[in-house]
């Protein structure tokens, strides 16, 4: 295995880490407006209060690592999807400040403004992530000059939108299970119902997307022929999905949450399989695709970054675990909360 492939895998790990971790707090944002009343909304927001910022850092680091390891793909993707990325930025900015500002002032209209802004921004950001994945899967008009030749609206084709909606449903389910773990009493009982409903919606969209992919996105399965072991992950994915309702039914929400984490990890893995060895498929000519080789930094930079990652990642994992351990248990509102 060479360094280019190693960095492709590491980017996948960062992306999966981001999707699992920020996935549940985006999901909490998506379902945020389903509770009424200031106290319950504060409980929802504070369930992710200490954690969302650290979770978002996985995205920032993913972006930094993409820039560093595959600058050409980073430049093409970010400039080509200019409007989409700007929309994503605005969503992320609003999400961050909504949480920070919401409870800082005691007025119903102030608070509902930031509640709506928080929820909408979470939904839009998730949808855009899904749309980006959908476009990466199906390929984009990349020319011989390695530049994107299309418009913003070209990104919103049915397949990409379907993956976008699937992302929203996945995170809503993931967030609901997380909330079930973090709440108690009457609120928790209601969230129990959300878990079932969001799982139902997720399941329908998951099946639809799988069928659509198999029928209409031939690129996504090309690696399956040469690497049949990938089917193991497909099976694991299905088992993880099936275990979610089983665990909810048996009253073991912790297992349900782990299963939904595993589902997201497996989906990210399959996304990587669908891409490899490309980072961006060219829909105009396969030879113009940006691959882990023609879009990468030099061998030396990949090696330096590998050293940085090897030194840094143990610390990152250690203090991420410490923070999650410190904030374990049910949400308690205090003067320190949002």
């Amino acid at each position, binding site marked *: 295995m060479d360094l280019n492939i190693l960095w492709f895998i590491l980017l996948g790990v960062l992306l999966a880490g981001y999707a699992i971790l920020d996935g549940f707090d985006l999901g909490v944002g998506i379902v945020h407006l389903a509770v009424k009343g200031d106290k319950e909304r504060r409980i929802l927001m504070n369930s992710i209060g200490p954690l969302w910022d650290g979770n978002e850092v996985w995205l920032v680091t993913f972006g930094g690592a993409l820039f560093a390891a595959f600058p050409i793909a980073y430049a093409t993707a970010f400039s080509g999807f200019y409007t989409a990325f*700007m929309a994503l930025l605005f969503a992320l900015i609003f999400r961050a400040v909504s949480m920070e500002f919401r409870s800082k002032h005691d007025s119903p209209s102030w608070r509902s403004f930031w509640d709506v802004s928080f929820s909408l921004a979470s939904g839009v950001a998730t949808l855009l992530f899904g749309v980006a994945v959908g476009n990466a899967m199906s390929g984009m008009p990349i020319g011989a000059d390695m530049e994107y030749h299309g418009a913003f609206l070209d990104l919103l084709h049915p397949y990409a939108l379907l993956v976008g909606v699937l992302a929203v449903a996945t995170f809503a389910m993931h967030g609901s299970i997380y909330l079930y773990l973090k709440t108690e009493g009457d609120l928790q009982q209601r969230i129990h119902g959300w878990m079932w409903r969001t799982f139902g919606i997720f399941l329908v969209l998951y099946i639809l997307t799988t069928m659509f992919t198999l029928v209409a996105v031939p690129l996504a399965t090309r690696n399956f022929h040469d690497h049949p072991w990938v089917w193991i992950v497909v099976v694991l994915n299905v088992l993880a999905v099936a275990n979610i309702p089983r665990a909810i039914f048996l009253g073991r929400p912790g297992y349900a949450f782990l299963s939904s984490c595993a589902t997201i990890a497996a989906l990210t893995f399959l996304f990587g399989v669908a891409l490899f060895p490309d980072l961006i498929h060219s829909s105009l000519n396969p030879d113009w695709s940006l691959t882990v080789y023609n879009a990468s930094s030099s061998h030396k930079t990949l090696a330096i970054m590998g050293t940085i990652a090897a030194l840094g990642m143990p610390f990152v994992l250690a203090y991420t675990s410490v923070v999650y351990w410190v904030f374990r248990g049910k949400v308690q509102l205090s003067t320190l909360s949002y």
Partner: protein
Amino acid sequence: MDLSVLTLSRFQFALTIMFHYLFPPLSIGLGGILVIMEALYLKTGRLEYEAMTKFWTKIFAVNFAMGVASGIVMEFQFGTNWATYSRYVGDVFGSALAAEGIFAFFLESGFLAVLVFGWDRVSPRMHFFSTCMVALGAFFSSIWIVIANSWQQTPAGFHIVGQGLGARAEITDFGAMVFNPSSMHRLAHTVIGAYILAAFFVMSITAYYILKGRHLNFAKKSFTIALIVATVASLAEPISGDLQGRTVAQTQPAKLAAMEAVFHTGQGPTPLYLFGQPDPKEQHVNYGIAVPGLLSLLAYGDSQKPVAGLDQIPQRDWPPVVATFQAFHIMVWLGGLFVVLTLVGMYLLWKGTIFEKRWLLWTFVLVVPLPYVANQFGWMTAEVGRQPWVVYGLLRTSDALSKAVAANQVLGSIIMFVVIYALLFVVWVFVLDSKIKHGPDEVGPLPIGTAPGGLLGIAGLRAGTGGASLTGVDDAKEKE
């Protein structure tokens, strides 16, 4: 007006970076000040230091969130608007950005959670450790960002691969890239500038409390800590600036010539303008007052050696002279003002009369925008003075653009940024204002061990200050 993609993208970058840089210096400096305050709390066990740390932590958290939100924009923008630049520098610049993500951001954001929300969940020592880690994280991120930026000023440790539009820089020596000629001097200057800003920020708020007779004990102690930090930092800044100036003289002669509007290389000593208004067309400085030979002395340590002027550089490679000159001079004058103000403050602190000098306290309340201006203008000197290059001598700003982006897209995003940033700024000031009006939680002057234990003890302690009911109401309000 020329609404090309280049003009618009440059405008957008200036807008977003200047807005972003309102927040990081306070995070960097206040992080360090929080460490001092909490260390005092651990050492003395006095509740007022705890209240102090908690109050400034809340301010820190709001500021930090704004920094994160506006900072993601910067990371995205390299790719969205400056794709050619990203391809060109990715190999060199990328490892610094990745290191920032892995070493700094995770550290800051992880421990910030403990710092802000963890008071009741971890031991005081663990909490103090988290505060240190947050301050360290803020410092780490300044290291990597300044290194990356310095590489654009004084590229080192690389070679160029490919030709024409396909050319890009590839790293050959990581150590030489990190310790490029300007990085360490610029890092020191940036971090010290951040400490000046944060200390003046703390002094402004606490001087206001003192003038209004509120939270006196808290305010005087915070003010004193901040004044000491501000004095040390303000005195160190000119020294660091001098070191940096010598590097600029060696590595970026065009920038130095623009900073001082040296249009013509003379035969003998080159003067230093105290102020003036350069006229690039006439190649002359109007209304200027200059100290003979001082620029030669500062740049080379030799008052007789002439400084290379803009006449030795092709005109198409000139930076904008007026902006560079004025940004630099305003920064230097403000730096001088900070030295004077803090020294006057220290003298009166030593005499023990500072808190009676209302004029001085009002001055400290009102000057708080000036360190912000100085920080912004310092960066403006560095960045405008580097033009027309985005990577000095290698890649022109005009060649660094994204080719796939159209002018109307950039115009659209600029409008969005202006609207959103204006809104955020107003809300930020509003939230800050309500935090300041609320003030710290009142505590009695008794040390921890002497109060009777339990809730009653704390209630008694608070009742002793006469603020029990007020504080109680405030707490209840915040809970809702």
